[in-house]
Structures are given as structure tokens and as C-alpha cells.
């Protein structure tokens, strides 16, 4: 599974989201690659992605991307991240 975490600049909040998404995917037992991107590069980064994780403000700017865009409200909440990820796991 390829997950891209998007934030405004790709260096701050998306890195925190990536770390917590990797932990959540580990707990779910899902092999995944998690990368980060800034909002301006997100369209390119979304090519081949199964899922985009970002905040509500930035999700609005990514509305026309083909991969599912999922909003995370609390980037520190392991339970919220695990729930949104498990709702969007690829069907096997």
C-alpha cells in the first residue's frame, strides 16, 4: 500500500503524520510505504498512491486528485489515524 502524507511544505506536519501513520499501519499489519509531499507537489506524488492523508484545509485543495484523499483532524491521535487507515485498506 502506498500512502502519501501531504502538508503545506512537506517538512513539518506531514512528517509527524507519516511517523504516526507508519506506526498505525504496523499495528494493523499492513505492509506499506509512507512518503511525504508538499501541497504544490501533491498531484505528482499522488500518482500511484493508494491513499492521501492530509488536513481538512488542504484536502479542499486536492479535491480533483484521483487517489482517495482522507482527512486526519488530530495528527497525534493514534486511534483516529488507525481508524481512517483501516477504513481505506485495499481489498484483498
Amino acid at each position, binding site marked *: 500500500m502506498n500512502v502519501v502524507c501531504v*502538508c*503545506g*511544505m*512537506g*517538512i*513539518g*506536519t506531514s*512528517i*509527524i*503524520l507519516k*511517523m*504516526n501513520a507508519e506506526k498505525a499501519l504496523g499495528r494493523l499489519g499492513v505492509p506499506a510505504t509512507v512518503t511525504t509531499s508538499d*501541497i504544490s507537489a501533491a498531484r505528482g506524488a499522488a500518482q500511484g498512491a493508494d491513499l492521501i492523508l*492530509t*488536513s*481538512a*484545509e*488542504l484536502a479542499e485543495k486536492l479535491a480533483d486528485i484521483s487517489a482517495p484523499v482522507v482527512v486526519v*483532524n*488530530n*495528527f*497525534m*491521535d*493514534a486511534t483516529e489515524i488507525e481508524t481512517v487507515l483501516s477504513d481505506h485498506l485495499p481489498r484483498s
Partner: protein
Amino acid sequence: MALDLSTALPDAAVKLGFPAADWRAAVIAAGDALVSSGATTDRYTQEMVAAIDRLGPYIVIAPGIAIAHARPSDAVLRSGLSWVRLEVPVAFGHAHNDPVGLVIGLAARDHEDHLEVMSALAGALADRGLSAALAKADTPARVRELLAGDIGD
């Protein structure tokens, strides 16, 4: 590479009980703290504020916590953090995570540079017990001690 929080977060980069009238004043305080500690120039502070004007309050990543930052640039003299706990929390306009009582300023010289510091921060803030202790930390030394404690785990 050992994380050196005393360099990343020196006393000059910490403000506890800072009175801010609004989110802009709070972000400028986090920028000024980066400048006082020698991490950035004033231009970086202006860029942090401009990023929120442009992209919205997405930097409020968890209830009460904002991570203020801008792109790596020559306005960053060295990578560093600042830590501004507000006297009274202020609204950033975030639908879920307002009001904000802690603004963490982040300056990175490049994308890889600050990964270790970010990892320490993410670990500490995700730990509810540690996060509560950090919210009450009343000296810069205590903030560093709590952040550093998480790294040892």
C-alpha cells in the same frame, strides 16, 4: 547522531506564559524565539505567518498544538525549535483543534536535517502522559528534559 536538544531548544527559544492577542502574535512570538536563539532571521518569521495566510490553519495538528514553520531557506541559519506556551489559548480558525495554547516553531535547513527532532517531538506529543507533563513544564530545562526522556525509550 545524537540529538542535542540543548542546541535545538536553548533557553532563548522557550517562552512560557506568553501573552498573545491572536494567532498572528503567537506565531510571531514563536518566530522571534527562533531569531533570539540564533536559528533564523526575521524573514523566516514573516514566511511562517505568510504560510498560514496562504494555506490556512492546517499547522494546528492536534487539539491545542500548532507547529509553525516555513520552507527551508537562507533565512534559516541553523536547524532549531522554539516553544511558546501562551498565557491564554487563542483561536487559529481550525475547525477541530482550536484554541491553541502551544506554538512550536520549527526551522530546518533541509528536509532531512530535522527528522530526529521531529521524531522526538512526535513521540512526546503522541504520549498522553508526557504531553500533559509538557503542558505543565515551567522551565526551559524541564521542557528539554521531558522531550529528551522520550527519545531514550
